[in-house]
């Protein structure tokens, strides 16, 4: 199994993250979900909160709010309404 997966975070105005990551915590409407490589395909609405992810060069965080997240074949796409560096 792959050790990392591709995480993309975008808002309508720009792309915030496109990186290979080992783990991500995403604030969804029904609570935080933790994503590791090999996660099952999933679709959810996002909630406001702190998105954190762990990549080769350490831990990162973004404040995001509103939108959707899609997990598909080791490819996680976060389509947020708004985002900013945390």
């Amino acid at each position, binding site marked *: 199994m792959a050790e990392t997966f591709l995480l*993309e975070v975008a808002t*309508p105005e720009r792309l915030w993250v496109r990186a290979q990551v080992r783990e991500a915590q995403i604030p969804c409407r029904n609570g935080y979900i933790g994503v590791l490589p090999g996660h099952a395909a999933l679709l959810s*609405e996002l909630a406001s909160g702190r998105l954190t992810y762990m990549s080769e060069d350490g831990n990162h965080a973004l404040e995001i709010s509103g939108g959707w997240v899609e997990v598909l074949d080791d490819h996680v*796409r976060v389509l947020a309404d708004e985002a900013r560096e945390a």
Partner: protein
Amino acid sequence: MPSLIDLRRRIRSVRNTQQVTKAMKMVSAAKLRRAQDRVLAARPYAAMYRELRARVAAAVATDERLATHPLLAQRPEERIVLVFFTADRGLAGAFNTNLIRAAQAFIAEQAGKQVQLVTIGRKGRDFFRKRHFPIAAEYTGFSQKFDYADAASVARFLIERYARAETDAVYLLYNEFKSLISARLTTVRVLPVQPAAAVRPVDYIFEQPPRELLEGLLPRYVEVAVYQALLESVAAEHAARMTAMDQATNNAAEMIARLTLYMNRVRQASITKEIIEVVSGAEALE
């Protein structure tokens, strides 16, 4: 023959104009760069959104309740809203003129139907207001500054009208930015929302019912389309202005060269005339 002083004055005035057009060209070039960056920056989201919607739509393709969603409702096109993106200012070559002409052609095509306008930008608004054309809403100032929230508020206005069944179709008319020297007039229908392209359904875990997800996704379709149109239109506007000002600067340079040549001829002619007078005066004395 014009006097030397008059010619000098004209050259100076052309040179001043040239300085203005050169400055405008440089300002437009800087603004164009920024606008182009924004167009590129907005692409990933738009692409991701399209794919997401197509996959969600595939998951609910069999759900009949969706057909009743107000943004998908198909009605005979009797009352049409045309959202019309022009610039706030002129001096952009044929940018605004082409748009206005295309809008008039569009309206003429819809003979017998009722067309209302939503104007973005001052030039389009002024033109149609002078002709007492019905304008449902107007927005200005976007070529100076706008963000996604502005596009979303325009989209909300359109969505609300459509959901209340006050209009049967919404079209966007704008200049799509192709390259520095070419823009393409584009007309797209954003409401009713077009069914998503068919894709293979994916076996998702849906945290919310797929139907709810899609209902949330549909208004975003209009927002993204309006935002995209705004970005393209603003980039095309700056490109058109930059090209027009470049042309004007070149024309001014050419004019200065012509006037300078003429001025030198006039000066030489007057010197020659004076010499002839002196020489013939001296000969008369011999």
